[in-house]
């Protein structure tokens, strides 16, 4: 079963429509899709630990780097003209900046955590996108069942497999999201046996909906935070 899944992954990755059709017609496509995503996400993340560790081994500690930069900065001629409050503010800013940078530097622990986090993230994205794509595909005249949509769109995650190149440090794997979108188009087209134009819209519309939802949530968040801070300021004044 696993061997067959990898062969399907290889063919789906290289945009072979027969791979998506095979997944559509296979018994229990949802379960197979879920297993495929868990395995792919975990294996790719495990391989990525090597690259992340090598990057960590050649990156200076952000705390030490911050100290070195601050000490060097304090030797500049500008320091003489600065009031002590301003110097203290600069020190705080340096500390905050390098503390934030610490979170973005690669490290083996984060790499190991990704063995769990990566499949979880992929599964959430797959469940949300699959559901929206299924709704739009059905609205556009699609014939597929929900489990077939999930089965084929799970295969569309295949480009993630190219993250195996992350065994090398400092590598940037570009274009995977776009490649994944093209795979999703084939997945929806196969699952619902739609025409190319309808399959295109069923692929793109979930992204439009998600983008609009993001805008609405961001606006609501800004409004709520704005109201919260306004009440804080008013409370402080009283």
């Amino acid at each position, binding site marked *: 079963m696993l061997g067959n899944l990898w062969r399907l992954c290889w063919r789906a990755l*290289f*945009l*072979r*429509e027969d791979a998506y059709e095979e997944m559509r017609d296979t018994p229990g496509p949802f379960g197979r899709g879920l297993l495929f995503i868990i395995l792919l996400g975990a294996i790719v993340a495990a391989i990525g630990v090597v690259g992340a560790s*090598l*990057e*960590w*081994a*050649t*990156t*200076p*500690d952000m705390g*030490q*780097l911050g100290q*070195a*930069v601050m*000490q*060097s*900065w304090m*030797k*500049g*001629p500008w320091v003489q003209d600065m009031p002590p409050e301003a110097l203290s503010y600069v020190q705080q800013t340096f500390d905050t900046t390098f503390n934030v940078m610490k979170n973005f530097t690669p490290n083996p622990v984060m790499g190991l955590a990704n063995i769990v986090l990566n499949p979880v993230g992929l599964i959430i994205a797959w469940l949300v996108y699959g559901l929206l794509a299924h709704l739009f595909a059905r609205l556009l005249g699609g014939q597929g069942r929900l489990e077939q949509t999930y089965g084929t769109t799970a295969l569309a995650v295949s480009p993630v497999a*190219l993250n195996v*190149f992350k065994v*090398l*440090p*400092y*590598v*940037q*794997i*570009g*274009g*995977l999201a*776009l*490649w994944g*979108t*093209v795979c999703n*188009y*084939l997945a929806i087209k196969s699952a619902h046996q739609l025409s*190319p134009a309808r399959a*295109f819209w069923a692929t793109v519309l979930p992204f439009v909906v998600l983008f609009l939802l993001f805008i609405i949530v961001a606006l609501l968040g800004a409004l709520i935070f704005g109201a919260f801070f306004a009440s804080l300021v008013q409370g402080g004044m009283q």
Partner: protein
Amino acid sequence: MSEIFRLWKGALTFDTPTFTALSESGDAFRKGFMVLLLVGLLVGLVNGGVQLAQTLSYGSATGEMQAVLGQIEQGMQQGFSIARQYGAEIDPQVEAMISENLKYGFKIAEDAAKVPTPLPWPWGSIFEFLGSTASVPFAWLSSLVLYGIFVHIFARALGGQASVGQFFGSIALARAPHLISVLHFIPCVGPLLGVLAAIWGFLIYIKATAVSQRFGYGRALVAFLLPLIVLFLLLALFVLFMVIVISLTSAGQG
């Protein structure tokens, strides 16, 4: 491997049977991607290798940083000199102030470069070389897929018949001439060869589009240009809209 070489050679010589066979092979995208991957890795390997050799010649992390900073300073001096040649008046006091601040900025960068890492210099540079080499084909791939999606949509609207795999596999061959970019490190000649590769690649793109979509070169060229034209028109509309809004706002205020 021999199949990849045959594809690469056929693409360079605009050999129609090569494009037709690829398109009809049923595994077009894998084959086209392999050509792109190998050419990209070779280009990354040679150009990255030249850069790595230069980095190793600096002897230490501080030496490497000093060399980089020296290049920046030289570039700035050249900038001032060119600006003066074109009649710009640069206040010597301002120039001195910039130079002095730059000197302190360089000192900070040098001190930062001295902070130790678990693995000593030059491992960081070696790893960056490996990473940048492997990144080249994926950088090419992302631009190819991004623009290719729009070309494919327009090609289908113009009567094209290629499947997604056939089209992307065929246009991946447009990267075949970029193998001459392995000579990019040669001053003057390298960038010129890059231009030559870009023109050659464009012609292969048109050929690949025409053969895979099964229509003429005229329609292939239109399909290639339409995304650019639409983007230009959208930008023009946006600018026009902004001009109208700004004019109306200023008229209202007046």
